[in-house]
């Protein structure tokens, strides 16, 4: 096993060389606290943060004053939901609309907010993972304060009709939050065109460092602070800034914005090659997610009659890193809530594998992956007591 193929770029990405180079001096040379504006070292740190902020703002057509740095996509999601819910605490508005296929950062936050009287409607999705705009409209109540829908799903890659949802939210005067953690960096996002009020971003999904995220908050949005303390981030998000991480985030976004379209095109071609390769070489598979409205780098298949973890372990032995369901839930015994929401039965859901590509991947890598999968699935199916869909649906 000499080959090493990392196909789990939705879980996290390798930090790009240019990103690390940019970060380097912020560890032991320009290490000042950005709040210390009265000496050079502090001012340099502050400038570095503001440069990164501008990069993010430009990338999504926002104003710099609308960008805040957080510790990651999860914190941003928490801030959006809790911030809006608590701003409306005891004020009569207590209803959130979201979907059944959100990341746990959204779903578990909604669950938690129940104890503060918040009610949540979880929209269904169709077999491709798309929400139904009619159901969304019907779910709106006078108490609805927030609609939160992810831009693209982390497991199946399905891209939601964000612009249409933004229109509906605006028409009803409801705030619109978008978890764009997976889409950010691979899809061009214009927060104004899409009527987005709040948006979550994370650096480690696009070649930036782990533990740093971003939050877009449209000017004038009524939202409580989430982390209280010092005056950082214009008094909206306290805590000494992870300057080196912010610098890395900015650089990663700069790189992503440079050749976004060509990259998306190239990845889409590779993605389609992998989809076709698997479909044509392995029987009894189901493509999860939408055939075309999906992230350029996402492939997700269910392989009937076998179980995901075994596939992953065998892939690992062949040097291929992939995932089964979302990274956060691997190790859990439950099949992915996303796949179940698309109507997959449990048995089939258990046999699902996600491959998420990066720029570093070649056509040869794709072909190697198809070949490897063919052997693995054959081996495991030979071992399986389930031989057909009837077996699968038992229980």
């Amino acid at each position, binding site marked *: 096993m000499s080959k090493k193929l990392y196909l789990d770029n939705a879980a996290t990405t390798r930090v790009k060389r240019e990103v690390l180079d940019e970060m380097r001096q912020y560890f032991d040379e320009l290490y000042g606290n950005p709040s210390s504006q009265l000496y050079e070292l502090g001012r340099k740190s502050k400038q570095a943060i503001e440069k990164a902020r501008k990069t993010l703002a430009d990338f999504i057509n926002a104003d710099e004053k609308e960008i805040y740095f957080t510790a990651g996509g999860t914190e941003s999601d928490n801030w959006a939901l809790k911030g809006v819910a608590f701003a409306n605490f005891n004020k009569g508005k207590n209803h959130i609309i979201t979907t059944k296929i959100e990341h746990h950062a959204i779903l578990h936050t909604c669950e938690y907010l129940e104890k503060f009287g918040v009610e949540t409607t979880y929209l269904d999705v169709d077999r491709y993972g798309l929400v139904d705009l009619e159901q969304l409209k019907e779910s709106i109540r006078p108490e609805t304060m927030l609609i939160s829908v992810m831009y693209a799903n982390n497991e199946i890659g399905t891209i939601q009709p964000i612009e249409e949802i933004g229109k509906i939210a605006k028409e009803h005067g409801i705030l619109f939050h978008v978890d764009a953690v997976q889409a950010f960096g691979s899809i061009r996002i214009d927060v104004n065109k899409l009527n987005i009020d709040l948006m979550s971003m994370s650096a480690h999904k696009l070649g930036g460092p782990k533990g740093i995220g971003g939050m877009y908050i449209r000017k004038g949005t009524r939202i409580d602070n989430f982390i209280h303390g010092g005056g950082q981030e214009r008094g909206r998000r306290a805590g000494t800034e992870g300057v080196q991480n912010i610098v890395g985030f900015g650089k990663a976004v700069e790189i992503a914005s440079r050749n976004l379209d060509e990259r998306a095109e190239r990845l889409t071609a590779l993605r389609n090659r992998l989809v076709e390769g698997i479909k044509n070489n392995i029987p009894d598979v189901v493509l999860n997610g939408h055939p075309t409205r999906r992230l350029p780098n996402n492939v997700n298949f269910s392989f009937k*009659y*076998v*179980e*995901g*973890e*075994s596939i992953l*372990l065998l892939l690992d*032995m062949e040097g291929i890193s992939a995932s089964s369901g979302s990274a956060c839930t691997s*190790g*859990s*015994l*439950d*099949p992915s809530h996303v796949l179940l929401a698309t109507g997959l*039965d*449990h*048995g089939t859901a*258990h046999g699902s594998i996600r491959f998420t590509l990066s720029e570093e991947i070649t056509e040869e890598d794709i072909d190697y992956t198809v070949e490897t999968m063919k052997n693995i699935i054959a081996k495991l199916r*030979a*071992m*399986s*007591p*389930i031989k057909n869909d009837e*077996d*699968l*649906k*038992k*229980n």
Partner: protein
Amino acid sequence: MYSEIVMDHFRNPRNVGRIENADGVGQVGNPKCGDIMKIYLKINKDEIIEDVKFETFGCGSAIASSSIATEMIKGKSIHEAVGLSNKAVVEALGGLPPVKIHCSVLAEQAVKSALYDYAQKNNKVIKGLENYKPEDDEIHCQH
């Protein structure tokens, strides 16, 4: 995550397959929970397990548990085999992660279930299986 022994049994599972006209067959688990184990036994007139095969749908530790369980009972008498505990399976595997302990339980149950099938077909009573009801053994995963 997994011990060397688990990985060895997962990579090279022993006794994979079926036995046609097996003397006892047991299947436990279900696709919903993500694990199914099926064990086939060939038992001779001295009540010795001459051959054993398994088929498993499940994770790495489910496959490894089935594999090692078949090794542990092959050549044993049915009265010894019925004593195979999930604890013994875990120990033989050099340990399992807590969330995977149920795989060893499944292996124990699959063996018991196959022995029960044999006992039923042959109108025998195996000590330790007197009150065994396969359906009681079913693990219910929480969905």
